[in-house]
């Protein structure tokens, strides 16, 4: 029984070892097919648009607002400052990159009552009023920012996201 199995194995080995005729033009055909699928001059170029797109996406991700749910949970808040002598008042804070040009306040009712409306996502924000472009004032209606490190007064406002707002 074992001898017959040995003979079978020997026949299989001999079959596998028999010479195989290879078409001499096979190499040339294979290389021609490869050249048609991916020409040498175009092999690397598609990466550049991809990298450019990745850079753009990364830049957008860096510059986007802090809260992904900002649009859905944002709260509209009115900021008010009484400053009868002021010629201009701007609201600046964590929500507008501390840029006075972004949230100028209006005095529509006269009497030096300045107001503006800002939409804020849940979070804790530092802010202040800039009067006449030079004078910093905290909001008398909100808690003061105690950890002010720049020597001028600021206030804090907290916008909640649980159980009915909580703007403070």
């Amino acid at each position: 029984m074992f001898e017959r199995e040995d003979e079978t194995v020997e026949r299989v080995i001999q079959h596998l070892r028999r010479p195989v005729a290879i078409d001499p033009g096979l190499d040339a055909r294979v290389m021609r097919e490869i050249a048609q699928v991916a020409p040498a001059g175009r092999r690397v170029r598609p990466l550049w648009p991809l990298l450019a797109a990745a850079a753009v996406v990364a830049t957008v991700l860096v510059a986007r607002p802090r809260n992904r749910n900002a649009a859905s949970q944002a709260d509209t808040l009115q900021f008010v400052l009484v400053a009868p002598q002021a010629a201009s008042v701007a609201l600046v804070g964590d929500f507008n990159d501390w840029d006075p040009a972004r949230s100028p306040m209006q005095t529509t009712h006269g009497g030096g009552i300045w107001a503006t409306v800002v939409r804020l996502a849940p979070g804790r924000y530092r802010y202040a009023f800039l009067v006449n472009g030079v004078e910093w004032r905290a909001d008398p209606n909100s808690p003061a920012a105690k950890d002010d490190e720049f020597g001028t007064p600021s206030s804090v406002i907290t916008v909640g996201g649980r159980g009915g707002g909580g703007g403070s």
Partner: protein
Amino acid sequence: MILAALLLATQVALQDPRLDRLDPDTRSAVAAVVDSARVARLPIEPLIQRALEGATKGAPGPRIVTAVRRLAADLGTARTALGNDASAPELEAGVAALRAGATTQILANLRSVRRPLTVALSVLADLVASGVPADSAAAAVLALAPKARDADLVEFRRAVERDIALGAPPGAATSVRLNAGATDVTAASSGNPGTPTRRSRP
């Protein structure tokens, strides 16, 4: 070349154009802190805003850099206390609470009874800023946190601040309002229409 392109893309991402308002040395130092925070998966927007605040207020560069570094360190401490799943607003509020005198243990205790924590931590910080001892403020917020809504916590803080403005000792005002507010919170949670839910002004 591909690696160089990827590095270039990363550099482009790191150069936040808002930081152009800083002088070159300050911008470079702040960008390094922001980069480290990004690697550590800390929120970077608060760091940028702190730098912009300093720039708009005309603070010297070294002071801006110190403030940003300190904030980055405190954000890390807050995350350690609140956990890796804490949101950016929660971490910012956690920093405020820590700077007001709350311990990391208090933050961890609050985390175990309430989510999200942003308003609770902010109220804690604001109470301390109003003169309430940190222990009393923490105890009050911990007592209210499991059931109170954000609006209830804000109203509690306002009530305490009103009492303090009228001359009440901060600690006593907190205790009195906490005891009086227990009933109000229960009523508000069940839909009391008299509870404020929105403010027209901060």
